[in-house]
């Protein structure tokens, strides 16, 4: 076994939660910035935030190994992206309409990705990524490179109602692939409450029906996310097959920044899941002596500086030029005469 195989390259507990927390802080600062840019009319397209879901997302992103694992982030995964190593500039470029970066203005915001580096570029159709990640893992197995690798994606409560989610998870189960699917059950799909989305007591009840491991976690509890999600990733890496994790939480923003989320009842906002995972994280990290107030303060400063730098850079960059744009959907060059 090379050093990259097996689960021994999983970060140690403290390193893992520190990496998580750093990503969460950065994501929050970045998203706050995106929100004000949106309000100032500086953003191209819509803005979709992961506020309140950072612990879940970062726990996943930080448990994955860039360059080895596959990660298909979804709409609320800024923290996971950052933890997985996505440069901030990718996000800034996508939202600010720079012509540079992986999507070059052809696609934007949360649809960005670096598929060559194992971070897939989502399409909007919910659930579609599940089978695609399964396929990437299947390919790794065929190439003899699967050992110690995992693939992961996040979906919302709403996305569990798609046929694509069902077909993809079932396929992964049949092929016993090391796929981690996190359901961030944030109680709403856009405005639709879960009572119109599913009728089971808890979505984790679905795990048995697919023959996959099921895990539940309080998505606002930072250390619980680290423990449960870190463990599930480790299990998948060690050959235990697909892992379905259901995290309970609340989206702390609107569906997108165009939406004030006023349909979320006050009781829910004030309930346990209405708490901010970042506050919980800070409390827990201090309590366990993993980080000090000073370190946290300096992490925030670094995040602010990094975000500022990325945004400033993207804002200076050229926007796409339709006259420079190569209008081809095929990669096969000899077909190009066709569209001319």
């Amino acid at each position, binding site marked *: 076994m090379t050093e990259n195989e097996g689960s021994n390259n999983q970060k140690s507990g403290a390193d893992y939660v520190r990496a998580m927390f750093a990503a969460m802080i950065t994501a929050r600062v970045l998203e706050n910035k995106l929100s004000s840019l949106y309000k100032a009319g500086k953003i191209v397209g819509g803005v979709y935030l992961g506020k309140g879901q950072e612990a879940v997302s970062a726990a996943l992103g930080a448990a994955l190994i860039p360059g080895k694992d596959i990660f298909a982030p979804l709409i609320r995964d800024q923290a996971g992206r950052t933890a997985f190593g996505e440069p901030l500039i990718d996000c800034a470029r996508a939202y600010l309409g720079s*012509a540079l970066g992986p999507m070059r*203005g052809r696609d934007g915001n949360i649809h960005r990705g670096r598929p060559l580096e194992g971070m897939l570029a989502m399409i909007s159709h919910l659930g579609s990524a599940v089978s695609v990640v399964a396929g990437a893992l299947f390919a790794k197995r065929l190439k003899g490179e699967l050992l110690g690798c995992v693939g992961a994606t996040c979906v919302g409560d709403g996305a569990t109602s798609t046929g694509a989610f069902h077909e993809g998870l079932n396929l992964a189960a049949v092929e016993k692939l090391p796929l981690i699917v996190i359901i961030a059950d944030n109680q709403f799909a856009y405005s639709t409450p879960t009572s119109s989305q599913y009728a089971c007591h808890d979505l984790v009840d679905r795990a048995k029906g697919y023959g996959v491991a099921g895990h539940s976690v309080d998505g606002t509890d930072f250390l619980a996310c680290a423990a449960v999600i870190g463990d599930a990733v480790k299990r998948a890496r060690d050959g235990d097959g697909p892992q379905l994790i259901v995290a309970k939480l609340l989206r702390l923003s609107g569906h997108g920044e165009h939406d004030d989320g006023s349909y979320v009842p006050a009781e829910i906002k004030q309930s346990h899941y209405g708490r901010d995972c970042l506050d919980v994280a800070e409390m827990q990290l201090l309590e366990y002596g993993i980080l000090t107030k000073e370190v946290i303060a300096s992490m925030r400063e670094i995040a602010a500086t990094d975000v500022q730098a990325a945004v400033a850079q993207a804002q200076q960059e050229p926007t*796409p030029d339709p006259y420079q744009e190569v*209008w081809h959907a095929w990669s096969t060059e000899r077909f190009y005469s066709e*569209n001319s």
Partner: protein
Amino acid sequence: MSVTYIDAIREAQEHLLRDDPRVFLYGQDIAAFGGAFKATKGLSEMFPGRVIDAPISEDAMAGMAIGAALEGMRPIVEMQFADFSSIAFNQIVNHAATHFYRTGMPVPITMRLPSGGTAGSGPFHSQSMETIYAHYPGVVVVTPATVADAYSMLIESVKLDDPVIYCEHKFLYRWLKAQSFKGDGLPIGQARITRMGRHATVVTYSAMVHEAVRAAERLQQESGWEIEVVDLRSVKPLDIDTVLASVARTGRLLALGEAFPWGGVTAEVVARVVADGFHLLEAPPMRLNARDTPVPYHPKLWAAHRPTPESICDSLRKLLSY
């Protein structure tokens, strides 16, 4: 006081819910929230139990509408964006569209597809899918371009016994205004001469009708050309008689659409016109469509991806100079 295209869609649904107990609305976020575009705002309060939030299950949403239609109801299904109807594709083209032919029993469902491009919406929130549905036998595909048509054609769609794909253009939602919902009463299946002209005919539909009119006005001012604009209104059935009559007057045809270029409405229009009106043509019929790539996200790319008054004028100048 003026009303908008989206107002028309909302009003038509209110009207239908009020007048026809068989009508109900089904879609994601359409009840209390009133829909992603507010096309059903207030309706769930006015008609309790008849405006229902659906799970994110486009296949099942279409299937449920089919089953309800077979039980005598007249469901209107809102897709959150036309692009997501790709998940309902099988139920629409294989279940709903074949049913009358197979069994003699029609399936009166109306699928509302918020269609077409808007700035910054990208590849998955901008598609025009009329071609995909119109290719299949058994569906009616309507593409209203005016406030009055948005209103009357939605009402008419629900009254038709056949499954209707109602393509509503998102760009027109709030931009397009009128004094009232009242129109000229043209039925589905009949095209309209939106603007009269003598020198060339632009055949188009949906939001492109307005771009064509802009181009026509520009050419008139610039060089006195009089361009006739035909609004197909429904792309299936397609009123080729009105198109041929126009081409008979002008001798020149530009078929214009916002969809992808391969196949589709513009190809069908040209192919039918040359089949029956070859002798009427004084110049080769032209087509202008979007570019053959996914719809770009960035507004600057998007604006160059779809036809614009400028590119329509360019095409018309070529057509007129033949």
